[in-house]
């Protein structure tokens, strides 16, 4: 799986990658971005199987990037999971509307795995 991890914190990028591996996801290629514009450039440059985005990033935040991706026909089906320590019902509703998963920091392995798996296979919950 080719994955994009966008977070302005290098430590968090390392931890997200570590959690992906520890939760059994096969990562063949991991590309990192430290802000939203950088992430958008990388999404446009080559396809990804999964993108994990922090909400608070300089230049373009995760929610704005999500909206941009969903509005672009060639990328609109990219599985996306948003990671944040902030959570609110309104935010979760907005993310669900845009077909994005949400991982709340600090996450548990179970939460992490469920959200990533759901993003990768959104039909699973409807079976």
């Amino acid at each position, binding site marked *: 799986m080719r994955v994009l991890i966008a977070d302005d*914190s*290098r430590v968090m990028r390392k*931890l997200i990658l570590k959690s992906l591996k520890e939760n059994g996801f096969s990562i063949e290629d991991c590309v990192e971005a430290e802000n939203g514009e950088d992430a958008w450039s990388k999404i446009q440059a080559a396809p990804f199987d999964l993108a994990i985005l922090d909400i608070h990033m300089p230049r373009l935040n995760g929610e704005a990037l999500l909206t941009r991706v969903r509005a672009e026909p060639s990328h609109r089906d990219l599985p996306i999971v948003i990671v944040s*320590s*902030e959570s609110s019902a309104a935010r979760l509703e907005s993310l669900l509307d845009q077909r994005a998963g949400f991982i709340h*920091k600090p996450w548990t392995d179970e939460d992490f795995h469920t959200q990533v798996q759901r993003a990768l296979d959104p039909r699973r919950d409807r079976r």
Partner: protein
Amino acid sequence: MTAADDSLNAAARECLGRLFDLFPTGASPATADIPWERGVIVGFHGDKTGHFRLDFYGGAHGDLVARWVGGPVEAVDGNDVAGELANILCCHVLPNLFTARALFRVESPRAHNAPPTEGAAPLAVTRVAMPTGWIEARVMVDPA
């Protein structure tokens, strides 16, 4: 210790458990002659306005960095780690201290280069003994 202190302490312990598999059970240390390492402040706005402050003492910071990244402390930016931890703790404790429905916007963490001083009373403060050193978390709320 107030109910708010207890709530803050419980939230901090829960976060440490999830992040580091650390479940400190020792008594919170009294103010002791343990050297201060660094502090981080996260401002918050919303139903209440104020800031969350996290301070590291006696080697706690280096120990937590090593546990978190699983590698040498020198390989990462210490302020990055301290800031992320403060951000996570702040967002975790605010709903516990106020209500789950309260809405907050948090600022980016900023390092603080001096230990906390006695001043306005915090809404909540707690110390948690770590395998190495200890951490102190406090929540300050601006007057309405």
